[in-house]
């Protein structure tokens, strides 16, 4: 398996109300293509901060970040945006769908982002393929208010997959869903790994975490392996 991500000694300190607070204190992490990884941890343990560093939303204070062997620790914002578009897909706890746009238009948002240009026909084909992949192609013309929570999250997953990213980052994607719908969403995310996509899932849900190939625990700014697991 190809090594997609390699984090070494990553630290991050955030401004606290009284004093700076170290959130990540030397995190090491490796993710391979086709691998799924769950990160567990208490609220405020730094899971989302770690995910935002991996997703190039922010920069670490120290340490090294290799993406496909390339050092991107100190990437300028313009190049980071291009990499986010090309390499990463994001799924958030809240679905962040635009109410005035249809499901298809919401998915197409990731294609109309100023990073290259696809003609309308190709764009539509890619969008429909992504919606098909998560099983809601028939809802392409529906607007978010007419969709259930699970359907909305699957639209968000389709938006994350439409550019065929190498890495999928999911920040508590089932947090707003019931157990059954959450399972469907996890299944949709896992299916992406079958095509070689690496998946990092941040979650509180132990059951969902157990469905990942590996489960790590973030505690006191350190990422501790919780043992290899066999996917369910």
């Amino acid at each position: 398996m190809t090594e997609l991500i390699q984090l070494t000694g990553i630290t991050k300190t955030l401004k606290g109300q009284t004093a700076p607070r170290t959130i990540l204190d030397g995190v090491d992490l490796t993710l391979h293509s086709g691998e799924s990884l769950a990160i567990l941890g208490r609220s405020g343990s730094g899971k989302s901060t770690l995910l935002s560093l991996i997703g190039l939303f922010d920069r670490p204070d120290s340490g090294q970040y290799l993406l496909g062997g390339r050092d991107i620790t100190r990437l300028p914002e313009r190049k980071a945006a291009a990499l986010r578009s090309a390499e990463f897909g994001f799924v958030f706890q809240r679905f962040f769908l635009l109410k005035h746009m249809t499901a298809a238009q919401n998915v197409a948002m990731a294609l109309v982002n100023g990073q290259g240009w696809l003609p309308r026909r190709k764009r539509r084909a890619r969008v429909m393929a992504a919606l098909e992949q998560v099983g809601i192609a028939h809802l392409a013309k529906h607007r978010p208010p007419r969709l259930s929570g699970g359907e909305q999250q699957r639209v968000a997953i389709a938006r994350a997959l439409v550019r065929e990213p190498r890495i999928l980052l999911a920040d508590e994607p089932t947090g707003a869903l019931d157990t059954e719908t959450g399972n469907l969403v996890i299944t949709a995310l896992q299916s992406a790994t079958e095509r070689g996509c690496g998946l990092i899932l941040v979650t509180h849900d132990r059951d969902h975490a157990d469905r990942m190939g590996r489960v790590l625990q973030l505690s006191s700014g350190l990422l501790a392996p919780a043992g290899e697991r066999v996917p369910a």
Partner: protein
Amino acid sequence: MIGLSGRFRSALIIGGQGIRARKLRTFLSMVSLFLGVLAVVVVQAGAEIAERAVLANTELTEGRDGTVKMYVPPKPQTVPVTLETLRGRTDAVASTTTMAIIGEPGVTPINPGAAPFDQPGGYTSGMTCDQYGNCTDEPPEGQEAAPSGQAIELQLTAMTGDIRQFRPFRPGSGKWLDFASAPSLSPRLVLNLEAAKGFGRYRVPAEMRITGADANPTPRIIGVIDDGNPQPAAYVRSDELLNWLPATKLADEQAGIGLTVMMAPDATAVEQTLRARLVASGIPPKDLHAEPINFRKEAATELALMRWIFLGMAGLVLLIGVAGILNVGLATVGERIEEFALRRAVGTPRSLLAGIVLAETLLTGLITAAAAIGTGVAALKLVTIFMGDGEPSLSNLEFPWQAGVAGVVAGLIAGLLGGFVPALRAARIPIATVMRA
């Protein structure tokens, strides 16, 4: 280049989606901007129309821009030389103006001195002036004033050719002078509107008296034109007038009235020939003045100040519109923080986020400009329909393209100014907003 094109298209698409999603807000922004853009359009259109009207009137009385105008001093030899040189030419026309009275002989005309009929007064042909320039219409001692009678005094302009190529008279009724046919013993006259008004109002005999004429001819009125002259005037072929008047009398040396020669800009050969022949006849070269008419530039300079003052006022109204766009833009960006953060998360560069906001405000400005221009065109059409009959300068008005351009530029500038700060804010929205939500 491709990247830029992609970003440009993306900004337009997303901006268009934003406008469609917030139709009421866009409409309210347009309302606040509309008056400002309309003010710019109206000022620019008004200035252009005023300039055109001033130019059109000046063309009627002075001549088209570019026409070369030469003044030939009133000497006995200048008239025959000028007439001879210009005979049969179409690119140069000589004209001279004298006074004529049409009507009963030996009477004081209804409008002494060719005064407008509704505004009596002015210099009369019967006036006498002393060495200090003080004039009186009392007859010289020993003479009696002529009794009032049915006669009309007018300015009579004799021409060697069709002067309309230089002074584009507006046609009224009847026909214009035919310079190709043989001269008639009964001089054919074309009246201006004021003279036609006089002849319509008063019944006068068809006998024309011209100072210095051997006899009084019977004129034929063949048409009416608008020459922009408020005084009664008539136009006649010089050769028809010369049947009754010696050539030397066409120029009045005592009154200082000479010939005016109007030439096409490219008629330099005529000018050189005429100048050479006049100099050869004894006219000093320094007495021959020729200069092109350049009134457009003069009028533009005179109107520019007025235009800028009004544009300044329109600009202030436009600023209110800009403030409206700014206000709505800031509120909208505040509401769309999550959307912009999400767009950054999926790889949209900051510059494109700013571009999206600017695209929305610029499109709003353009749509407003289109509405303001449409309103301007419609208003001008209505003015033309309802007021054009009473006011000749308001008939056949066309919407000036410069006003359209000014409206579009005003809309774009307003969109740019109003969208600038919201665009900066949109570009600075932290990407981590989506993680904290």
